């Protein structure tokens, strides 16, 4: 059984928001659109986004980490948003595991957003239906698009290729390999939702310097006669012993 998912690599995400607006741009005119903008040129502009980057700080100066954390629907394998839906609008596709909302059935009761522990759903204040990431289900199977374009808009856009897309049930997929090899993790596993989307942690590269690397036979100072030498007049063992 296929379970499509995103794997988001926090090791390379620089928080540029390319995924945020490329998603908005594709989906606002796609089958899950429109994505409303309220007061787009006024006070406190707000609107529907399927994907947002949250930036936060961890630790105290100077040991501070700044984390860019892109977040969208995690397409849980056991999604709490589906069974709570009184109209069946919220559903999980059998063929690929994508969790979707059927706007024709949604009555905007928001049960699903209460049930989702990740805050991944947003009510569209104009249309009064619940909206969320579709993994660009209207792109990934579209034969009108070239094969390389049949990916979620955010994955295609991401300049650091921090967003990987594939089937986490296929052990040989790019996402499964990334999770396996880089310590990929799911958010809040204690909820038992089995999120399909995973995150890859920061990985640090350090350089260990050995003392002897600072002093070498080929030191150019030797050639230029500048290697520090003690003066002949400085004290030595000769001053004290005749052996």
């Amino acid at each position, binding site marked *: 059984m296929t379970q499509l998912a995103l794997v988001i690599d926090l090791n390379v995400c620089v928080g540029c928001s390319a995924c945020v607006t490329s998603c908005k*741009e594709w989906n606002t005119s796609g089958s899950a659109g429109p994505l409303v903008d309220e007061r787009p040129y006024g006070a406190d502009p707000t609107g529907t986004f399927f994907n947002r980057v949250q930036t936060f700080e961890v630790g105290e100066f100077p040991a501070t980490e700044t984390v860019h954390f892109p977040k969208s629907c995690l397409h849980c394998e056991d999604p709490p948003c589906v069974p709570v839906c009184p109209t*069946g609008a919220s559903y999980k596709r059998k063929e690929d595991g994508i969790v979707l909302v059927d706007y024709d059935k949604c009555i905007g009761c928001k049960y699903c957003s209460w*049930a989702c522990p990740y805050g991944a759903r947003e009510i569209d204040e104009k249309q009064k239906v619940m909206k969320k990431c579709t993994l660009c289900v209207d792109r990934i199977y579209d034969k009108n698009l070239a094969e390389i374009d049949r990916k979620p808009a955010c994955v295609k856009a991401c300049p650091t290729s921090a967003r990987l897309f594939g089937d986490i049930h296929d052990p040989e997929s790019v996402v499964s390999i990334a999770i396996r090899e880089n310590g990929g993790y799911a958010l809040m596993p204690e909820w038992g939702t089995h999120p399909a989307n995973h995150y890859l942690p920061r990985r640090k590269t350090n350089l260990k310097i050995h003392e002897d690397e600072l002093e070498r036979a080929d030191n150019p100072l030797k050639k230029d006669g500048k290697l520090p030498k003690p003066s002949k007049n400085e004290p030595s063992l000769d001053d004290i012993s005749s052996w």
Partner: protein
Amino acid sequence: MGIFLKTKFKDRMSSIPLHDPTAPQEKCEIRKTTCYMCACRCGIRVHLKDGNVRYIDGNPDHPLNQGVICAKGSSGIMKQYSPARLTKPLKRKPGTERGAGEYEEIEWEEVFSTLSERLGRIRSTDPKKFALFTGRDQMQALTGLFARQFGTPNYAAHGGFCSVNMAAGMIYTIGGSFWEFGGPDLERAKLFVMIGTAEDHHSNPLKIALSKFKREGGRFISINPVRTGYSAIADEWVPIRPGTDGALFLALIHEIIALGLYDRDFLVRYTNAGQLVNLDAEHDEVGMFVRTEVPEEEGCYDPQNKLWWDRNTDKPVITHSEGADPYLFGEFKLADGTPVKPSFQLLQERVEEYTPEWASGITGIPAETIRRLAHEMGITARDQKIELPIAWTDSWGKEHDSVTGNPVAFHAMRGLAAHSNGFQTIRAMSILMSILGTIDRPGGFRHKAPFPRPIPPCARTPNTPLAVKPDHPLDGLPLGWPADPDDLFVDEKGEPVRIDKGFSWEYPLSVHGLMHNVITNAWKGDPYPIDMLLIFMANMAWNSTMNAVEVRNMMTDKNENGEYKIPFIAVCDAFHSEMTAFADIILPDTTYLERYDVMSMLDRPISEFDGPVDSVRIPVLPPTGDCRPFQEVLIELGTRLRLPAFVTREGKRKYRDYPDFIVNFETEPGSGIGFLSGWRGKAGEKFMRGEPNPKQWEMYAQNDCVHHYELPRSYQCMRNWNKGYLDWSQRNRITRYSEPILIHLYSEVLQKFRLAAQGKGITRKPPQRHAKRVEEFFDPLPFFYEPLETQMSDKGKFPLSAVTQRPMAMYHSWDSQNAWLRQIHAHNHLYVNASTAKFYGVEDGDWIWVESQWGKVRCMARHSEAVEPGTVWTWNAIGKAAGAWNLSPDANESQKGFLLNHLISEELP
């Protein structure tokens, strides 16, 4: 809660959706062009449905962005349909005041007749009374040509307050610079040191490269007062106090030399480290390299007539003599008794006192960290050498059977450059990069065509006011690269010719002009008043100016006769900005989706490390309303004014329009050099030089709007000294000379200015009031001083530094009003280190005043641990004037956002 509901509603309703979410979308028409949401210039595909933009994505076949696109690029659709668009030429309503923002619509014919009448009068009386200054427009080759043809020296783009220190500091040292003309080779680097960078000109390519670099296990160190964006994913963040980067570099140089971690072979052959400097204090040429003879041919290059002191024969020899190996240290006496030292000895003496402990007190970085950084750089450069089996020949004819590289790459932005000590700071950084042996080598810094160029590049401004003549083009370029005081653009008294005082004794190496001085100087009438200011795409009334409040006042100020001190202001922009409100006439520009454009080799092309690349924009939509591309405006004006480049000998129209101009313009008749390098020649068979090709635009259109010439592998590195490359470059007229471009660790150019200030030599001398300053700052070796404005402020009263960054979602964009991007950043906060905030009693979210000796501004504070305690910072250019950009008067940008430019000045206190 979730668990409970799960059982309650399980399987109650059908889960079959009422509509098929995978139903194929209607097919779109795809048109390719080049993005212009910022200065990066990615290839894009615009998907059109019924003639409207459905969406824009990255062009996967484009060399620059390889299919990716950023937040701005994806929001281009909201630029296109922005309610702030200008769609009709506007004239200030008769009887209303400038700045009131009351306009009436006019037709283009009135625009052209008004402008050509006024400009014609100025041109036939005193052409310098017309000033043309432009923003980050990427069309400086055309705007510069127009100014020169008009005959005014008063032309520049916004580089004077943005890029000038970076460009000048690096180009005067290594013959190339970061941003459009070079960058870090992250493909091969092992250690990447990024300094003062929030975002980059080359933003998507840098992101692509940085991600690969990290994934391949490269080590990434970020030096920055603030940890945002790229710094967030650095393996190590080194917080530094603003304006002190020069001290850090000098200490790193100190440590690297002291331990012998420099690349001696590189320094000897490819820099002036071994060249002997005349130290005879009585001599007119003290501080200059000693020379053997005057070369037969003088040109814009370093003649190979300097001396080394050879270790093998213990005698002075001509540099690069076969079998010779120079001393880099020591002092010697020439046969005539002249005392000399190798320039590297002088560098070592200079950095002697710049110890890590010294730098620590200035930068706030612990001395042991500075030492470790030096060790990491030196050891990685030395022990992780790259050797590629590529044979090449150097400028002295020596054959090399491999290209080697020291894989330490640097990258830097305005964070270290845009300070009043930025030039010497960038010199120090370039020297650090050079002593590590990383210039144009794999894994280090790599040039991009048309760089490297001679040090300094050959372009010169005129050096006399006689170059400005009524009804004549300017005799020289409006901007250039002075090589000595005789190249300055001053009159016989040594006073400036340009309105911004560029290339005068006040600002000798202001190679990008000084846009931020124009309005102030024109208002003061110092050095002279002007008649007309034409501003293209620069927000001089707001975030593209320093001292914004005063500058706004100057534009509305009148003389005793009730006339505006700046008599006529014309502004061309695509949007209602803060600046358009000060225009007497507004020219509505198109968006990037509505016009032709070139990213020309004559300007700042999108070249790659492996060879020259230029590109074009091709309109995908018709212009909105009655807007017109500024290029078309210039060509029309040039034709009406009968500027020689735009008309035939008989004074008739030469070019139908801009596309026709681009195809057929040649730098001189028959030169075969024009704006685009690709598909030249009658059938498009030639590159760089060839007859105009009537099908050139079609050929660009068929090739993703881009022309990429990949150099042979043996020409891709060591280009300062690569005989094959330099000959190729000369044959293709990219450069006039093919002489090697030795790195200037020691800058004779600066020494020439210093000597003039000391009254020595035969070049021009500065007016007395400038002599001391020129003597002090034109030091041939880098040195550290506190930024001048910091030296002059009362540190008891103003103990903190303030810096700005642009967020990635708005970097280099005009689109802060963009409906989607402003939902990411609608207003800005002042970020304050939590401990600093507590000390001053500032709570997170408080409204506070932030104050400098120039002014104060109200803002909201936010606590942060990602900023060093002596610094406060904010996102720049989010705050807007109420009502500008067609945002509602209560928009967050004006009610909660703020502009830090109110706290700075274009002049010292």
